[in-house]
C-alpha cells in the first residue's frame, strides 16, 4: 500500500487479506482500518499484477500474485 494509506493503518504497508474482488478487498480494509476502505474507493488506484486499474470495484483478484494500492494518477 502506498501514499496516504499509512495514516489509516498506523504505518503498516503490507497485509494478507482473503478477497476475490477489489470490492471485497475495500470492505475488508474498511473493517480493519476504519476510513481506509472509503479512502481507497475514492482516491486510490489498484494495481493487479502490475496492471493499474483506476476504478476496479468488480475486478477479480482471486488469482492475483500482487495487489498494490497506489494514489490515483492524473495527467496533463
Amino acid at each position: 500500500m502506498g501514499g496516504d494509506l499509512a495514516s489509516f493503518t498506523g504505518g503498516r504497508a503490507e497485509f494478507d487479506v482473503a478477497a476475490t474482488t477489489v470490492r471485497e478487498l475495500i470492505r475488508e480494509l474498511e473493517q480493519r482500518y476504519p476510513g481506509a476502505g472509503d479512502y481507497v474507493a475514492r482516491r486510490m488506484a489498484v494495481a493487479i499484477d502490475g496492471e493499474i486499474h483506476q476504478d476496479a470495484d468488480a475486478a477479480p483478484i482471486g488469482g492475483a500474485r500482487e495487489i498494490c494500492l497506489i494514489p490515483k494518477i492524473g495527467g496533463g
Partner: protein
Amino acid sequence: MSDVLDRPDAKAGFATVGTRPVRPDGVDKVTGRAAFGADFAMPGQLTGRVKRSPHAHARIVSIDARKALALPGVKAVVTGADFPDLASEIVEGGEAASNMRDMAVNVIARDKVLYEGHAVAAVAAVSAAIAEEALDLIEVKYEPLAHVIDVEAAMASSAPVLHDHIFTDGVDPKPTLPSNIAKRHQFARGDVEAALAAAEVRVEGRYTTKAVHQGYIEPHACVASMSADGQAQIWSSSQGHFMVRAYSAKILGLDISDIRVTPAEIGGGFGGKTVIYLEPLALALSRQAGAPVKMVMSRDEVFRATGPTSGGVIHVRLGATRDGKITAADVELKYQAGAFPGSPVGAACMTALACYDIADFRIVGWDVVTNSPKVAAYRAPGAPATAFGVECAVDELAKKLGVDPIELRIKNGARDGVKAAYGPTFQNIGYIETLEAVKTHPHYALKLGPNQGRGIAAGFWFNVGGESTAACHIGEDGTATVVTGNPDIGGSRASMAIMAAEVLGIPVDNVRPVIADTASIGYSMLTGGSRTTFATGMAVVRAAEKVVGELKRRAAGVWSVPEDQVAWEGGRAVCLDPAKGDVKPLTLKGLAGMSARTGGPISAEVSLNAQGAGPGFGVHLCDVEIDPETGHVKVLRYLVAQDVGRAIHPSYVEGQMQGGAAQGVGWALNEEYVFDADGKMENAGFLDYRVPVASDLPMIDTVMIEVPNPRHPFGAKGVGEVPIVPPLAAVAIAVSEAVGVRMKDLPLSPPKIRAVLDAKAG
C-alpha cells in the same frame, strides 16, 4: 529521421492501423476555417471582462460596484458574493482530484486575494471598451499582506501564512499551527541511510526549477448563455467539455443536466485546460444580464491568472557499487502549488525513480502553497522537474564511475518483473529497448566539437485509462461516423477514424470522426493523462465491433443462415454456410442500403471504463553548442526514442514526441516566471517569456519502439506526456558538458551561462 522498431512478436498485419492518412481536421486548421473558443458568437452577446488583483496577497476590505453598474452599457457585475460558498470537497470529475472550494475561490476571490491577477469582480457590457471602463469604476479596498513565492521561503516557520485552515497532512503528529506546507508525501523501501552509508560511490546535488507555463497559443475563451428558466449553454475551448459542465455546475450550484457544453477546437492545452476559470463567471454574468456573455482572456491574463506548473527544489543523493549497481537513492522534492494546495509533487514522487531498479530508496515530496497562480496540470505533471534532478545525478554518477551513461542505465534500468518504486511490478514495458535504440543510433556515434556537449536522459509516465463513450453510426451509403466526447488536442480524431476503419474493414476516408457536445454523447473524462487514444479508442473499437456484429446478424437474416455462419472480412459479410453454395458477399454499402428492410438504422454506442493503461518510457539524446561570448545555447541535434505501444497513426505519435521535446527544451533553456519584489509577474507576454520557435530547434529525430499493450485491442499506449519528461535533464547535461560545470538551476538562459563562464575565467 524517423524509425519504428518492433519487438519480433509485435507484427500484426493491420490494414489501417499504423498508416499515415491526412488528419480529418487538418484542412480546416491550416485554412483558418476551424472554430476555436474565441470564434463563437451569439446574437445580442455581451462582452465580459475581469477585474484582477494588483496585489500578491491582500485582504479584501470592500468592493463597491455601484459606479460601474451606473455606467451606460453595463449590464451586469458579479463578485464573490454572487457565488455560493462551497464546502471542502474533493471531486474526481476531471483528470485528477480537485477541491471544489478552492477551485471556486480561484475562479473569483472571496475575503482575500492570493496572487497578482486573482479575479475579484467581472463585468458584462455592450462593448469591450465599456466593460474595461467599468472595471476601472469598481472600487476595491485592500489591506495588503506580506507575500511569499519562493518554495523554501514559504516552508519557513516565519513565512506569511496563506490559509489558516492548512495543517500539514502526512506528518505525525499533525501540526497544531497552520502553515503553507499542505502535505508531505513519502514512498520508501528498505533502509536508505544504511544503503547510502555502505555505498562505494556517492553523488549528491540540489537542483532547482522555476514555474513555467504550458504556453498554449489559444487563450481561454468561452461564450455562455443562461435562459430565464435556468437552462444554460456554454461554448468553450477546453480539454474536456464534460469537465467544464461538472465544475461549472458545482461552482454555481446548478444541476449538471441544466448545462449543455459544446466544445470548440482547442489551440493547445498541455494540461492547462483541465480546469476552468471563465465559464462560471460568464454564466453568472449571463444570468444577471439576461443575455449571452463572451469572455476571452488576454495573453497577460493567461500568464497572471491561469495555472503554470510548479517551480521546485529537487535534492538527490545516490549510492552505488564501484561496478555500477545503484544501491540507494534519496530524493526530496519541494514543489510550489500556487495559491491553493495541489502541486503535482505526489506524481513527481511516484515517477522519480520509476526508470530504475533500486533496492533501498526514500522519496519525500512537499506540497507548498505560495502567492502565485494555482498550478495546473502540465504534461506529465511533476515528472519533468524531478527527472531533471534524478537524471543529472545519474549522469554525475556515470562520470564518477567512468562508465557510459546509457550502459549505466541499462544495468540499473526498469524491465518486466521489476517492482516499481511506486509499487506495482512492471509488465510489457520497453525501457531497455529504448536505451538500446539510442545507443545504436548514428547520432550517438557522432563526434563533438569545441564548446559542444551531449546529454542523455530518461523519463517515465504512467498513462491512464478511464471513462469514455463512443458511438459508431453507419450512413445509408455505407460510410461511417464515429462520435466521441473528447476534444482533439493531438490528432486523436485521426486515431479514432483509423481504429474504426480497421474494425469495419473500410477505407479510413469513409470514416468521419466527430466530437459531440455533452447532450449528444455519453460521458467521457477529459482529454489528458495520455488517455484518449487508449481509452476512448477502446470505446471506438468496441462500438465498431458492435456494428460489425449487427451487420453480420443482418446478413445472416438476408441469407437465412445462423449468425455464426457469417464472417466479416475486408468490409464485407461473407457466408460460410456451404449449404448455401456460392453466395455473393454483402458489402457494408449494400447492407447499409437495405437497413430499413433489415431492422432500421445501424449504429452502436459503447461506454466503458478502460483499465490497464500501459506505462511509457522515453530516452532523449541532445547535442548543444555554447557561444562563449553571449552565453547562447544552440541545440545542434536532438533524438527522441520512446516505447509507444502500438503507433495507431505514426505521424501524430512522432508529433507528440517532437512537441514534448520542443516544450522541454524551452523549459530547460529560457522559460520562467519572473516576479518583482512585490510579487508581480514581470514577463507576462511572449516577448519576455520566451518559448522556443522553429528557428531555435533542429529537426527532432524520433525512434518509436513498439511494445504493444495487451489491454488495448491494437496495443496502444499513451504517448503524449512521456516526451516532456527527459528534455530538461538531457539539455542541462549537454550544457554542463559544454561549459565544464554541472548546471543545476533552470532555466539555462544566456546570463546564467555567461556568469558560469566568467567565474571559470576568474
